[in-house]
Every structure is written in structure tokens, then in C-alpha cells.
């Protein structure tokens, strides 16, 4: 069984902030980490491999330093990884990102199952997985909460719906996005770290793809554009209370009584 997992490097914290008075972006030391939701995708792949055997690759797109998260996935037990990195990929929106990843997936060759995390903690869109599946022309199931069965030519999964759970049988090749908590992610292993220290991480750029038209990548390949960024609007109609606890609690209760909550 050939499994491919898509992962992303995201900011370690939400450190990008706008200065309230000047409107200028403030920047503190930026640290990065593997998108926490991707840990569940990786763990799902590892569980499936332990059950039926096979090979796990990871693919990511980002600046060269994103190879760190591929190293991290090696420490969890992933067999092979590749990073898609090219200046011409910069400024990509959901569509261009999904297209770039789908080109990268085709570059890597055959697969049965692609697993993505539910969403990333920086973009929070949850849309790259489904768009990739469209570009690859394969079915997808989003919000998978449980793997029921894994067979020769199909997988049986539980998918979270607004009021129900849909149990679906999906033929390979296909893509699933998995929910948080599908399996408990394992910790990176020091033994694997030592064993995989020298394992190569190939970098692929636009010139390695089938489609080398720069207009399909990065900002040019992105239908949506950012017109401007701004700090969230403050609510002007507000009161701030300070003082000792007793006084504050008194005020709070008076207000809640006035508003008829108590």
C-alpha cells in the first residue's frame, strides 16, 4: 500500500500582530512547527502501514527551512519525503497551493491513498485537500473520524456530517482528510532520528513539474488576492472595570440583573 501524507510548516504561535496605534505589523522571534493537525494524518498513515504494510511518503510546500518538518516526520517513521520549494510558488492562495501540491504528487509517482490533516492552524481553511483531489481527479472524503477497514482496493471510513456519521467505502486512489483525535499521534523517536539523520530530502521546483507554466503558480496562479490587511476592529461601545474583587463582583451582578440574566 502506497500512502502519501501532505504536511505543512506553520508559525509556532500567532506572533504576527498589528500595532494598534500605527497599524504596522509587529514581529517577534518567529519559530515554526509542524501543523498540529498533520500529526493525526501522519499517525493514521503509520497505523495503516503497521496493519497492512506499505510505504509512506510525505510532501510539503514551503521555503527551504520547511525541510525540518520532513525530518520530524522521518522521526515518526515516515519512509520518504519531498519538499516543493521555488520562489515562483510564493503568494499562492488555496487554488495555486492545491495545484502545486497536485503537480508534486504526480512527480512522486503512484499512490493508493493520500491523507491530509483537517486544516492548518495558520490558514484554517480546510480546503487544500479537497481542491488537490479535484486536480488529481480522484474522490475525496473530508472530516474522517474513523478508519473502519482497509482492503485491497478500497478503504472504509466514517465521515463526520452535520447531524450524522456517514460510513463510506471509497476505492483507491483517493484522498481523505482526517479529524483531530482519529488516533493518538506518537512522539518522534530518538532512535529513528539517528537512523534517518542522513536520509535525503529532495527539493523540487517548477522546472521539475509536468506543467511549467509559471502563470499557474504562486501569486499569478491565485484567483484570490489580498487587497489589504488590518487589525481587527475594536468595539468602541465598551466599559472597562478595575478594582478589588468584591467591587467587581458587585458590578458584574448588578449588570447581569439589569440585563435579566439573573
Amino acid at each position, binding site marked *: 500500500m502506497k500512502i502519501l501524507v501532505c504536511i505543512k510548516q506553520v508559525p509556532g504561535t500567532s506572533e*504576527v500582530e498589528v500595532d494598534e496605534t500605527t497599524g504596522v505589523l509587529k*514581529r517577534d522571534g518567529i519559530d515554526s512547527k509542524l501543523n498540529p493537525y498533520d500529526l493525526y494524518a501522519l499517525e493514521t498513515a503509520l497505523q495503516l502501514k503497521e496493519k497492512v504494510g506499505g510505504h509512506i511518503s510525505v510532501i510539503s510546500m514551503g521555503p527551504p527551512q520547511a525541510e525540518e518538518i520532513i525530518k520530524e516526520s522521518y522521526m515518526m517513521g515516515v519512509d520518504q519525503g519531498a519538499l516543493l520549494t521555488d520562489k515562483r510558488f510564493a503568494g499562492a492562495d488555496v487554488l495555486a497551493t492545491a495545484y502545486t501540491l497536485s503537480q508534486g504528487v504526480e512527480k512522486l509517482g503512484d499512490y493508493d491513498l493520500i491523507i491530509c490533516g483537517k486544516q492548518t492552524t495558520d490558514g484554517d481553511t480546510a480546503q487544500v485537500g479537497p481542491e488537490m483531489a479535484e486536480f488529481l481527479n480522484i474522490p475525496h472524503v473530508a472530516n474522517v473520524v474513523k478508519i473502519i477497514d482497509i482492503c485491497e482496493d478500497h478503504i*472504509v471510513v466514517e465521515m463526520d456530517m452535520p447531524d450524522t456519521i456517514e460510513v463510506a467505502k471509497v476505492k483507491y486512489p483517493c484522498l481523505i482528510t482526517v479529524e483531530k483525535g482519529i488516533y493518538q499521534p506518537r512522539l518522534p523517536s530518538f532512535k529513528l532520528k539517528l537512523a534517518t539523520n542522513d536520509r535525503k530530502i529532495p527539493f523540487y521546483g517548477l522546472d521539475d513539474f509536468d506543467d511549467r507554466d509559471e502563470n499557474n503558480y504562486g501569486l*499569478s496562479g491565485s*484567483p484570490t488576492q*489580498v487587497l489589504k490587511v*488590518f487589525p481587527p476592529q475594536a*468595539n468602541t461601545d*465598551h466599559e472597562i472595570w478595575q478594582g478589588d474583587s468584591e467591587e467587581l463582583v458587585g458590578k458584574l451582578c448588578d449588570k447581569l440583573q439589569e440585563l435579566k440574566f439573573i
Partner: protein
Amino acid sequence: MAKIIINQEKVKNPEELMNLCPFNAIDYVNEYLEINAACKMCNICIKEGPEGVFELVEDTVKQVDKDAWKGIAVYVDHVEGNIHPVTFELIGKAKEMAEKINHPVTCVFMGHNIKEKATELLHYGVDRVFIYDDKELEDFRIEPYTAAFEDFIASEKPTIVLVGGTTVGRSLAPRVAARFRTGLTADCIILDVQENTDLDQIRPAFGGNIMAHIYTPNHRPQFATVRYKIFSAPERAENSTGEIEMRSIDKDKLKSNIEVIEIKKKEKVENLEDAEVIIVAGRAIKKEEDLGMIHELADLLGAQVATTRPLIEAGWSDPRKQIGLSGRTVKPKLIIVCGVSGAVQFIAGMSNSDCIIAINTDKNASIFNVAHYGIIADIYQVLPSFIEKLKILKESSVDSELLKLVEANV
């Protein structure tokens, strides 16, 4: 190909210029300043940097004929014909925008045996409802649903398509948007339309405390998803207006590699979205046991308890009780936010609440920007005495009711 170029001869202080970028996308290599792959094209370097150093170069591209696309379409989110209330909220927003540009509002409804249910939509001022009714569309499967959606867009050519940010919508909208090679903005919290039909889409961005105004200048249709409880549903009118049109689609297009084996009912949990009063516990909670006081407070106020992402990550709370972009969006009558700093993703999930009370020790916490009543204090000091006082008030109100009863009997 659009890109940012750096006019090297104008570079005076490279270190300072590197710091302009919030994403570390400017490198200084061999006395040469360059943009690396981390660039998000936010254009901050152009706006904030010295005049002429950073420059955006764009090639001329083929322009889309915006007049060829007319109407605002709403996807009818449903399970077994039961329409999800986010649909009505989107119809309300669609009508508001359609009026500005004098376009019709349409709905696309796909499923099986749903015609009856569709008449309900006509009480909300929709001009036309397009129905795809087929056995193959009975359960949600991505390929046939995408095919029907594609058929609708290809024939009706709506300029804007709004989809509810439910689990179904978040799976379907990207698929259809990709099929049309067009833009999709997820989880918008503000939508408006320009005279030239460009959709203004505003959402939190870049994982930071920033809002982004996103638009789709040269592609149609423009897709946006919006969570439940962001907009308000219009009043249901007694009379129905508008028409229903039945559509059919080639059976071949409804083929799928997915087979739905079973539909299971979910165990009924309290929906956070339905709560009238919510108490939120944030990062200030030091240990799991301390959630006890939050629950006690909630019981006294008849409220539900919700949390922020750090507490979910710590495993102290049910992910279904998380507020924010990776959790639920809520709009209760009262929300008391305890020890939450107020990341933009969290605020996006609750800022429409009627009354927001926030308690936090840090007077600069962003939560105070949205709170109607901000209390600068430690929750460990305030909450216990708040709980005591509530108990006393409750008892005295019981006492006074008893007293009334006694008096009435005398």
C-alpha cells in the same frame, strides 16, 4: 507572472528592510536583497518600505467578462432534505448584496425527494430554486454533488456562490471552485459587493491577529464559505414568491467511486451554537480541576461551557466545545469569557454575541477590544466570589418567592 522586485540601487539599510517582512521572506545574501519562497504577497514591504525599493510587477492578463456572470447563488445545505439554518442566513446576505447590484438570488438544491422541502425556501425571498433530484444524490458523495453543482454553475453563471461552512460545505465548495479554476475564500466574516460585482471577503488571516480583505479580481464565479451564526436569517414571509425549476443531469456524470454503506445517527450532544449563555475558559486556567469553577458558574447561569484551543490541545475539553475558526462559531445572548487573551481566530468565532463580558489580568489583551464589559482581574480571584454571590442571590430570590407564596396564602 506577478512578483515583487527589489530595486537594489535604492537599498540603503538592508537589515531594516529585512525586518519589514512579518514572514521572514526577505533575505540578504552576498550583499544582495532578495525575496524567498516564504513571501505571502501581502505587499507590506511595498507599503511600509522606503519609496521605490520594493515594487510589484504584474503582467497583463486576459480579463474575465464580468457582465457574463449574473446572480448570487446559495447552496442549500441539508441532510435528508432537512435544510440547515445557515442556508437562510446566506439567503439573507445574498438578498442584501443582490439588491445593490440588481441581480437575482438563486438557490441550488440537490438530493432525493426534496421538492416539498424546497417550497420553504420561497418564503425567504429567493427568485429561483434549482432542484437536482436523483437517487444518486440521496447521500452526500463528492463526485455526483460536484457534477450537479458544476451543471448549475455552467448553465446559470452566477457571479457569486455562497456555501455554508458546514462539514459538507467545506468539502464541496473547494471541489467545485477548483473545477472552475476560480477563487474560494473560506470562513468569511464580512461580505459585501462592489458595483463591478467584485465580492469583498473579509476573514482572519495568516494565523495572526490580522484581518485580510480578500477579493477575486479576475475570475468568476467568486466562491465564499461562511459559518453558521455569522449572519442573521431574514424573517420568514407568509407568502411565497419565486419559482422552482427542476433540473436533470446525465446519469453518467453521477457515477462515484464512493459507496455509502450506512448513515448513523450521532449521539445527541448539546450544540454550542444553540446556547443562549456561554462561559468560556481560556489559557489562564492552570489545571484541569480548575475547570470545576467554570462549570459551577455555568450551572448557576444556565449556561454551556466552551473553551479555547490550548485547553483542547491539553486534552481537558471536548473539541466540540471549542470556539473559534477551528471550532464553532457562536452568537449567544451572553458570553462570559474567562482568562482568554483573544486571538483573532477565537474572536472570529464569538464577536457577534449580543453581550460580551471578558475577565483577564492583562489590560492590553485583545479580548477587551470586542468585550462590551471588560473586567481587569484574575479569574482565580473574581470567579470564586462571583459564584458565592450568585448562590446568595439565588437563595434570596427563592426566599422572596417563598415569601410571596406565604403572603399569598395568608
